[in-house]
């Protein structure tokens, strides 16, 4: 019912506006074209100036309202660099923004059409044109240099002491795999995937490296220790989005990708810094992957090495789980016959 009234009200409003608009057209004709244009020039030139001032105040208010809703400090070493670069970029583009917008609206006001005035026939000045081509070119060169410096350091090979975690996206959740004590991730074949048989990743059970691999729905990281994510997908493209760490990388079926970074603060430290005792790092899917895309979120725990070791030790390997669930016959020799060579999809085997 209230919807109906809103519609009627809007229609009425619309009719009134149209009537006023029609009437003002007649008034304009009565007044004469020239006079009307003069008035419009004054009105809209003034509005342009008002827009500028209100807009600048609006920017300030918007910033005050929203600045506390931004993310806490970057939680990775790489993220700190990115935040720093973002500040530099903000300052440079901010200066250009204010100069050009203020000039635009001030000109719009100042050079409004006035009776008896004429525009200047001024359309060229090669010196000034040279400068305003050269200065942006120079600025861009600087930004490219800063950007590529960070880009190459972030995308360089992971340091040798990095721990490895495998991240696999699927509609609509994330699966993490840890190499276990042997430090090596076992072979996988996507054709062996079988959720009912405790094998969500298609681990090849005949590969002994698989026997201690732990599979989890939570990403556990060690503070201060570089981590290399080996990223893949089971079905469509997903994206490992790490807003707190300022990073992301696509998870592409058939094309393994990697991302490494160094977490800076444990979850507990971050909880203290943000004043939010329930703080949890999140991994969000950042690539449209179907109807459940918006629900594809995982928790990340950043902890000390000791806590991590304890956690890992407390986890059963997927192999054990599968065995307990009766998915693997105790006699594994038959499985070992599997033609390993014909498996093109070995995601990671060191």
């Amino acid at each position, binding site marked *: 019912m209230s919807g109906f009234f809103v519609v009627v009200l809007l229609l009425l409003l619309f009719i009134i506006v149209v009537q006023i608009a029609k009437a003002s057209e007649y008034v304009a004709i009565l007044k004469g074209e020239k006079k009307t244009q003069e008035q*419009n020039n004054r009105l809209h030139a003034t509005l342009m100036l008002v827009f500028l001032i209100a807009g600048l105040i609006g920017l300030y208010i918007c910033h005050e309202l929203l600045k506390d809703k931004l993310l806490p400090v970057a939680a990775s070493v790489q993220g700190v660099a990115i935040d720093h670069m973002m500040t530099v970029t903000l300052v440079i583009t901010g200066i250009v923004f204010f100069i050009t917008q203020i000039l635009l609206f001030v000109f719009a006001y100042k050079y409004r059409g006035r009776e008896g005035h*004429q525009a200047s026939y001024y359309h060229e000045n090669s010196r000034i044109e040279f400068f305003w081509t050269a200065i942006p070119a120079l600025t861009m060169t600087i930004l490219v240099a800063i950007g590529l410096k960070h880009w190459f350091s972030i*995308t360089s090979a992971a340091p040798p002491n990095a721990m490895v975690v495998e991240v696999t996206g699927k509609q609509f959740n994330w699966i993490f795999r840890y190499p276990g004590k042997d430090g090596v991730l076992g072979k996988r074949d996507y054709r062996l995937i079988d959720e009912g048989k405790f094998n969500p990743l298609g681990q090849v059970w005949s590969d002994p490296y698989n026997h201690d691999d732990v599979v989890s729905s939570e990403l556990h990281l060690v503070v201060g220790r570089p981590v290399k994510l080996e990223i893949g997908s089971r079905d469509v493209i997903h994206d490992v989005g790490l807003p*707190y760490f300022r990073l*992301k990388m*696509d998870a592409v079926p058939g094309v393994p990708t990697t991302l490494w970074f160094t977490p800076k603060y444990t979850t507990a430290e971050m909880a203290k810094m943000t004043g939010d005792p329930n703080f949890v790092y999140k991994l969000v899917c950042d690539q449209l992957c*179907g*109807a459940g895309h918006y629900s594809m979120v995982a928790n990340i725990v950043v902890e000390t090495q000791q806590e991590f070791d304890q956690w890992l030790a407390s986890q059963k390997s997927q192999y054990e789980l599968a065995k307990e669930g009766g998915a693997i016959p105790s006699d594994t020799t038959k499985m070992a016959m599997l033609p390993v060579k014909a498996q093109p999809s070995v995601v990671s085997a060191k």
Partner: protein
Amino acid sequence: MSSEVYTGQAQRAAVAAVAVHDGDGHAHHHHQSFITKYIFSQDHKVISKQFLITGMIWAIIGGFFSVIFRLQLGFPDKSFPFLETIFGHWAAGGHISPELYYQLVTMHGTIMIFFVLTAGLSGTFSNFLIPLQLGARDMASPFLNMLSYWFFFAASIIMLISLFLKTGPSEAGWTAYPPLSALHEASEGSKTGMDLWLISMAVFVVSQLLAGLNYISTILNMRTKGMSMTRMPLTIWALFFTAVLGVLSFPVLLSGFILLLFDRNLGTSFYLSDIYIAGHALPNQGGSPILYEHLFWFLGHPEVYIVMLPGMGITSELLATHSRKPIFGYLAMVGSLFAIASLSFLVWAHHMFVSGMNPFLGAFFVLFTLLIAVPSSVKVFNWLATLWKGNIQYTVPALFAIGFVSLFISGGLTGIWLGNSALDLHLHDTYFVIAHFHLVMGIAAFFGMFAGVYHWFPKMFGRFMNNTLGYIHFWVTFIGAYLMFWPMHYEGLAGMPRRYYEYSADALAIYHRFQGLNEFISVVAIIVFAVQLMFVFNFFYSIFKGRPVKDPNPWKANTLEWTTPIHVGHGNWPGEIPEVHRWAYDYSKNGIDFIPQTVPVSPAEEEVGETVKTPQ
């Protein structure tokens, strides 16, 4: 100049052809049925209106979709029973389903970018302005021109049908990345809806190629006597580069789509490898979705300039006309269009920094992307310098042109953030991107289109649009655009992912703090949408009831289209085609308000344009 001679010949040939065709011209039209005159017309002006009106219908649909999904984002807990009335079980209980959400988002993007801002925008103005501003009777091939519209129409119908499928239209986003778009099991929209989407887009590409080739050949061959390339108005230059971009990049998109159709229906594996979905492993091996991303963005990036350039041309033209001042730096404007058009082929992979592409390759795309900022800023400075010491007449088109510059600056500067790959690591696929491309491309291109419609409406229909409604339209849209999209930067900086159906899950608690803002944005979106409907009303009302045009040159403009009669017939000029003697920007020269291009240069005058000499 040999091209001069050639132009002259082509022109005489065209005149002769029309003379034969039209009999004794416009004293009495030979009998044209309603069908050949308004439907299967080969007159570029009618085709232009067909593109415009079809584009407007699509814009209403695409805008309406954004209102619906904004309702979901702004009021996720509220039930809107009318949604169930419209969408049936897709919106059971007055809540749209996730599938419907993604279908609306996908259709919104596809419609806005391709159907409105490509076909609707350059279809309208290329068709209308190229012959009229160059002094040609029609396009090089009026028949292909007509076909280009009807291919677009067919594409429209196919896309429209997909909206009514049982499984709904595509929901893979306007970018349609496989495997999501390749596998029927991946989503409801990946079933028949996706096939229709691909077929519709393939037909659309054909339409764009026919159109583009025609625009290019017309511009190169059909200019009137004296209209050398360097005397062309900047609108034409912009539309020329737009057409070139389309012709060079749309075929690549088409190939990408066709391979996708093969993967979907014929069991090929161009984009598919190692996939386990819906409980079974697929046999496909060796394909790569990243190949699709390259093929898509090889068009996708030039596409954003296909959307932008017409608006840039229109803005340049209108800022000069309405501030009664020559455009500043004409040659630099042409040069920067050329630079933008060329560079736009070397930056596509800035959409793919986090796709898994080789990071070393990424470095080149960073370089070229930030380089594009140089010609872009040259354009902005030239527009500012054009206003400087002008005598700005605040008509509705002038307002939209100034608004275009402001939006282009605001949205363009964040491109420098996103183009720098290290920052893109954080910002990619967040609301920061939504804010960026809506300001710089979505709203700005719409502003270019509005400016053009208000400016050339008198030429199209012999009447004016209502000014007061136009002023209201401008201010509400301009303010609304900033209110909607500026705060989205903050959401993006906070890492809020785009293409999310809702943020209410506990796991996304961090984004609950933006709920108030989302509500606000949605309310503004509804108001802005309502004002667009008012514009549509103004448009159609004015076609029939607008103030009639009395002066054939109501804006006192220099370009050739205003030398035609108020009601332009087939063939454009009743007599001979006028000859051009100067560039289009002699405003306020030697104390004279404006000097049309047809006025010969007096011996005392210094000519600008062909051989640009510095005054003083």
